[in-house]
Structure formats: structure tokens, C-alpha cells
């Protein structure tokens, strides 16, 4: 029986368990939208911009572990998704983006709203398709979800010409898929894993560096088991935040450019690095030739191209983190004779000393709001039970440094591409996937303006996301670099006119709150968390505040710059009770 292309698409999505699509209509996808008009069990969230749709699909995916889906029209609709797709690609996030395309016979004719989106997105998707035959629709969608969510996950784009969604054909749903040229290695090489265990047993100064791959493969429990069994401290990269409880005694926080003193010192002094699901990004390693000079490196990653791309690796283990850590832990457990705690004593003492010497800190002020203080109060008020998204820049780093994460999939940030404008739509996507959770976007006044239109989406669908705008009237991170490295020549980093965010919120029928002094911070947060609507919290912060520690670009990661003035004074602030 022949059915419409639109029906094949939507019913295939349902078979893949899709319940929400983030989308925006247009000429060549009208058949799809028409079918969705009375489709059951699948809901389309109408965004205000196609970039918002892809970031929402991304936030939905990161927070839930499911594949996020976006549906947009051809031409500008499709090109508007590119930033969202590249963001997902850099952070290995499974999303499927369906784009409309002009009718097959017009492709290549510079038709109205035509763009070669398959060509444009080839380098920033894991794979992409142009469907030319209706009978291929169902198998293509099946394959796309498989590719997006398996191996090293990533975005997949399917381009759907108008005549394909408008025509009729066969619904050929394949129960099984076999792609002969695509077989990601899941199980790690047993011999290599045994070697890694030997290294851990031999090592006097080991560290684990956990990345986003631990979260993607749901390996947090196994990571924790390994750390506790072998008494190896854990450093979490920006993408790995949440994979290991940051309040755990073995946690060293974040490494790299704005990492903690003790994480960077630990790496530089270590004799063994066990890297799990991370890719030695330049923001982590600093100057490559001076990175971890004494360390043997064990690298666990599902993507062979990540291994030996930036650093020399002694023991490569290709495969799924969860799978490999499980095997590793099994082998470790058989080695009962080793007195792990005893071996590690000196090293853990050294790390404790470093933690005491230079803890993460900032200078509290009674008169002007410090951004770090806002983050601390957000943590206290939520009891840590929240999904935090960020934009990019200082807000992102302060959130990573001062909020304490103890669960995976609770910190969503554009780590690889560094996309300003990511956090707000990602928060909306996360709220769709987690309707009962508190979702907060920690934003800057620059970033929030890059996708501020999505406030309408949050209002219409009654998604009570909260946005904490750390408002310093500057592109703060750019300003910080100009102050430190460009002789205080603030070229075009002063935003001059920043809208009244309270009025903006009100204009969209959301709620706007403002805090202008430190004593306003707690009441504003408490009020926002009680409100069942989207809220913009405008925190007027100290515009001079910088992110520290900082490793200058191109320096070794132990060459950190600290805030030169006095360390933070003991402050007497009552701890906020968690608001439920």
C-alpha cells in the first residue's frame, strides 16, 4: 500500500520513539507540517528561529540521552541550522535534522529557497542524506538514527525534496539495519586493558581525566567505581563535568585554561594519565610540548581518530567507555593484594596540599555583585538539583568553576564550538525533556541576545526555564583578554546599549527580575525558582571581574595567572535552603 512521504517520515520518527520535534515551517515542508497537524503522540515545538530549533534538539538530547530532532524548511531555514549542527558535531551530540529541499527536478537550478545543505553540512555532520526516492525514506530515517546515536554520536541531516514528502511510496521499515562500512568498535582490546591495569597498579601519581564520552556512554558509575577502587583522583574536562561528583574527595575539578590550580598541577606532576572519553583539546593541554611531561598516557575513546591526534599515547584502548571501564574494574577487583590506599597516600596528601594552597576562590563584595556569588547562590538555592546550561565566555567558565555538579547530563554547554546563543534554547530543549526539573541558563548579556527570541517559545509552551543573566555590559571574556593581553585597548567589546532585560521579559509575557546589589541576589533567585513561568534574572555584576586562574594561550598549564589581589575574605552569608 502506498502512503504519502509525509506520513512515512512522521511514522518513522514515531517508530524511533520521537515524541518532540523542534521546528519551523516553510514552503517545501508544508506536506510534513500538514501531516503533523493532527498526528498523535508526537508534538512539534514551534521555535522562533531555526538555530533555536537545533540547539533545543541538542539540549533535549544532552539532558535525556535520546536523539533530538529538528524539522525546518529549505534554503535559509536549512542554513540557519548550521551553527546548531556544528555545535552538536563538536560535542558529539546525537541529533537528526530534517530539512526541506526544492523538488528533485529543480535541484541545482538556483530555485527559490534552494541551498545545497548536504554540501554545506558535509564537514559538520556525522553523515547526511539527500533522499531521492520515496521508497528509501523509511530505511534512511532508520539509518540516520542509528548513525546519530551509536559509536561516537553526532548530528545527521536528512534533506527531503518537496516531491518526496508530497509524493506517495512504500513504507519499507527495516527491522534490522546493517551498514557494512560502519561498525564502531565497542569492546576494548583485553590485552590493552590489562596493560592499563598494570600501569595503574605501578603508578605513584596517577590521575583520571574524564570527558564528555563518559556522559555519552552513561559510564559515570563505572568511572566512580574505578576511582574509588584504585584511589585515583578524577579531573573532569568542561564536557565531562557531572560525570564524577565534584564534591567527591577524589575530585580535582576542571583542567586547562581556566581549570583549578590543583588539577593542572596534578596533570603536570603525574606519572600516569588515564584519559576516558576526552580528546586532549587545546584548551585542556595548553602548550602541547610541555603537557604532562612525566606521564604515561592511557587513552580510552570510541573514536580512533581522537587517539594520538594531539598527544602521544602509550596505551590506546578503542571502544565504548562504559564497556571498557566495566572490564577494567573487573580486572582491578581480582587484584586484591594491592593496597591501593596505602600506595596512593603520599600522592593524595600532595593533592590535598595543593587544594589548601590555592582553592577556587573569589573576592566577595558587599557593594557590588560578584558573578561567582550568583552561581554559588544558585547552587545553594537549588540544592544542586537542577539542569544548568550556559552560554559561552565568562558566564560559562564561572558556571563550570563555581556550581557543583554531581550527576551526569545536568551541565549542558557548548564546549567544542563555543557557541554564544546556545544556552537559552538548549535550556528550553532540556525543559521539554525534563518537565519537572529546574532548568537554568547561566548567561551573559551578550550571549543571551543571540537567541533571545526563543523566550516566545518558552512562554507559548509554558516551559518555566530560568535565565540568570550575568550582566556586565561587556563581552566579558573578550574584555578580559583585551585588558590582560592587548594593553587595555577595549576594541568593540563594550556593548554600550544593553536592553532592559526585565522589560524584555515582560514584553514577552514572561517574568523579569533584577538584582543590583549583593543583598538582592538571594531574594531574586528565590522568587524566580518559585515562579512557574520563564524568568529572566538580570544580575548587574561587577564589570571588572575576570575569570581566574588563567593559563595564557600557548603557555604550559602550570603557568597559571591568579587574581593578584588579596584572597577572598571569610564571608558571613546564610546558606539558602533549597527551594523545591
Amino acid at each position, binding site marked *: 500500500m502506498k502512503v504519502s512521504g509525509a506520513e512515512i517520515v512522521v511514522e518513522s520518527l514515531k517508530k524511533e520513539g520521537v515524541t518532540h520535534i523542534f521546528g519551523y515551517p516553510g514552503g517545501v515542508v508544508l506536506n510534513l507540517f500538514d501531516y503533523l497537524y493532527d498526528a498523535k503522540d508526537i508534538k512539534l515545538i514551534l521555535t522562533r528561529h531555526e538555530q533555536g530549533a537545533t540547539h533545543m534538539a541538542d539540549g533535549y538530547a544532552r539532558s535525556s540521552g535520546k536523539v533530538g530532532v529538528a524539522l525546518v524548511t529549505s534554503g535559509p531555514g536549512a542554513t540557519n541550522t548550521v551553527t546548531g549542527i556544528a555545535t552538536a558535531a563538536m560535542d558529539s551530540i546525537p541529533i537528526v535534522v530534517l530539512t526541506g529541499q526544492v523538488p528533485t527536478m529543480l535541484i541545482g537550478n538556483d530555485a527559490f529557497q534552494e541551498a545545497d545543505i548536504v554540501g554545506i553540512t558535509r564537514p559538520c555532520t*556525522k553523515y547526511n542524506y539527500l533522499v531521492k526516492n520515496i521508497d528509501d525514506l523509511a530505511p534512511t530515517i532508520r539509518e540516520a538514527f542509528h548513525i546519530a546515536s551509536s559509536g561516537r554520536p553526532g548530528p545527521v541531516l536528512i534533506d527531503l525534496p518537496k516531491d518526496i514528502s508530497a509524493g506517495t511510496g512504500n513504507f519499507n521499515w527495516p527491522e534490522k539495519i546493517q551498514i557494512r562500512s560502519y561498525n564502531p568498535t565497542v569492546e576494548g582490546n583485553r590485552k590493552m586493558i590489562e596493560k592499563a591495569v598494570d600501569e595503574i597498579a605501578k603508578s605513584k601519581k596517577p590521575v583520571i581525566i574524564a570527558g564528555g564520552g563518559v556522559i555519552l556512554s552513561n559510564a559515570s558509575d563505572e568511572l566512580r567505581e574505578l576511582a574509588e577502587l584504585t584511589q585515583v583522583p578524577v579531573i573532569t574536562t568542561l564536557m565531562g563535568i557531572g560525570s564524577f561528583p565534584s564534591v567527591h574527595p577524589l575530585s580535582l575539578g576542571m583542567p586547562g585554561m581556566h581549570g583549578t590550580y590543583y588539577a593542572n598541577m596534578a596533570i603536570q606532576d603525574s606519572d600516569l594519565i588515564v584519559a576516558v572519553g576526552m580528546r586532549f583539546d587545546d584548551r585542556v593541554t595548553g602548550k602541547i610540548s610541555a603537557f604532562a611531561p612525566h606521564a604515561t598516557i592511557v587513552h580510552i575513546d570510541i573514536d580512533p*581518530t581522537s587517539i594520538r591526534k594531539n598527544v602521544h599515547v602509550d596505551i590506546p584502548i578503542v571502544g565504548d567507555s562504559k564497556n571498557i571501564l566495566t572490564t577494567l574494574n573487573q580486572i582491578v577487583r581480582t587484584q586484591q593484594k594491592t593496597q591501593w590506599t596505602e600506595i596512593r597516600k603520599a600522592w593524595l596528601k600532595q593533592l590535598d596540599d595543593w587544594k589548601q594552597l590555592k582553592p577556587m576562590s573569589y573576592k566577595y563584595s558587599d557593594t557590588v555583585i560578584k558573578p561567582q556569588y550568583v552561581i554559588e547562590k544558585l547552587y545553594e538555592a537549588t540544592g544542586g538539583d537542577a539542569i544548568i546550561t550556559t552560554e559561552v565566555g565568562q558566564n560559562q567558565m564561572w558556571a563550570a568553576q563555581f556550581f557543583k555538579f554531581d550527576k551526569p547530563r545536568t551541565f549542558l554547554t557548548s564546549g567544542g564550538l563555543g557557541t554564544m546563543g546556545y544556552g537559552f534554547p538548549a535550556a528550553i530543549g532540556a525543559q521539554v525533556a525534563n518537565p519537572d526539573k529546574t532548568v537554568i541558563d547561566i548567561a551573559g548579556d551578550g550571549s543571551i541576545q543571540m537567541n533571545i527570541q526563543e523566550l516566545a517559545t518558552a512562554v507559548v509552551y509554558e516551559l518555566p526555564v530560568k535565565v540568570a543573566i550575568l550582566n556586565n555590559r561587556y563581552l566579558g571574556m573578550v574584555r578580559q583578554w583585551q585588558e590582560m593581553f592587548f594593553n587595555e585597548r577595549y576594541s568593540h567589546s563594550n556593548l554600550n546599549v544593553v536592553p532592559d532585560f526585565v522589560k524584555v521579559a515582560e514584553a514577552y509575557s514572561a517574568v523579569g527580575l533584577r538584582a543590583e546589589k549583593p543583598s538582592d541576589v538571594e531574594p531574586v533567585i528565590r522568587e524566580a525558582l518559585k515562579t512557574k513561568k520563564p524568568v529572566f534574572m538580570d544580575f548587574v555584576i561587577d564589570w571588572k571581574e575576570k575569570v581566574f586562574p588563567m593559563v595564557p594561550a600557548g603557555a604550559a598549564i602550570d603557568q597559571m595567572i591568579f587574581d593578584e589581589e588579596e584572597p577572598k575574605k571569610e564571608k558571613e552569608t546564610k546558606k539558602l535552603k533549597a527551594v523545591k
Partner: protein
Amino acid sequence: MRHTISVQVENKFGVLSRVAGLFSGRGYNIESISVGETLDPKISVMTIVTRGENQIVEQINKQLNKLIDVIKVQDLFDVDHVEREMVMIKITPTQEQKAEVLRLAEIFRGRVVDSSLKTYTIEITGDESKIEAFLELVKPMGVKEFVRSGKIAIARERSRG
């Protein structure tokens, strides 16, 4: 180091651009590339000649393997193999040089595939050194056009009887 890499790919539209994009997107160089269908029309073989430090070539091999449409990658660098390339050269000899061109073509087992009043077009097949040598010899006589197929390569069987 120069590496010849043989890549089996799905014979689909867009595959060549995925492979080419892999190189261009990372600033790697392709010296030559040739593509053709295999006995199985659903599979093509690409022979790619590239150059780079060991670490870069390792990345190239891994990145090729990572492409969804790539079935198999074989770097022939450490493998005993046969390489061939075909070139066609349009030479413009003077009246006196014409016999010399034909003689050289014969020595190099070439074939005259076209001739006009003023030109001979010679086809030569062989490995790189043979082609370079022939080119050296005919260059002084004037080469009007020169096209090459790009290299193709195949691994030798281990046990030769």
C-alpha cells in the same frame, strides 16, 4: 613520506566529495586520486597518493576509516605492491625529430595513439620513474599537452608460486 592508500568505498554520489573534504578540511594534500568501479558495481576503489609525517598519515588512515561510506582502507606503504600510472603526451617534434620520438616510444613500450602533421600523441604506462624518464627525454622536443591518469595500485599476493 609519500603514501599510496587504497580505499574501498560505497559507490554512491557524494562519496568522492566526502573523501576530498576530509583532506581539504584538514589541510592535507592529495597528490593524485583515481577512482573506479570494482567487479561489484556497488563498490568503488579510490587510490590516493598523499604525503605527510607519520602522525599525519596515521590520522589520514583513521579519518578515512571513520567515514561512514568507507568499507576498507589499506595503506600500501609497508606492503609489497605494484603501482601503475598512464600518461598521454602530445609532442611537437621537428621533421628531423619524428623518428626519434617513435624510437623512444618503442623503447618505453609506449604507443602512438594519435598523430597529426605536427604532433604525435604517445601513451605510456608504468611506474613513476619510467614516466619521468620518458618525459625528460621528449621535453626538449616540445610537449604541447600532458595528462596523467593518477596512480592505481594493488598489493602483491604473499605466496607467489
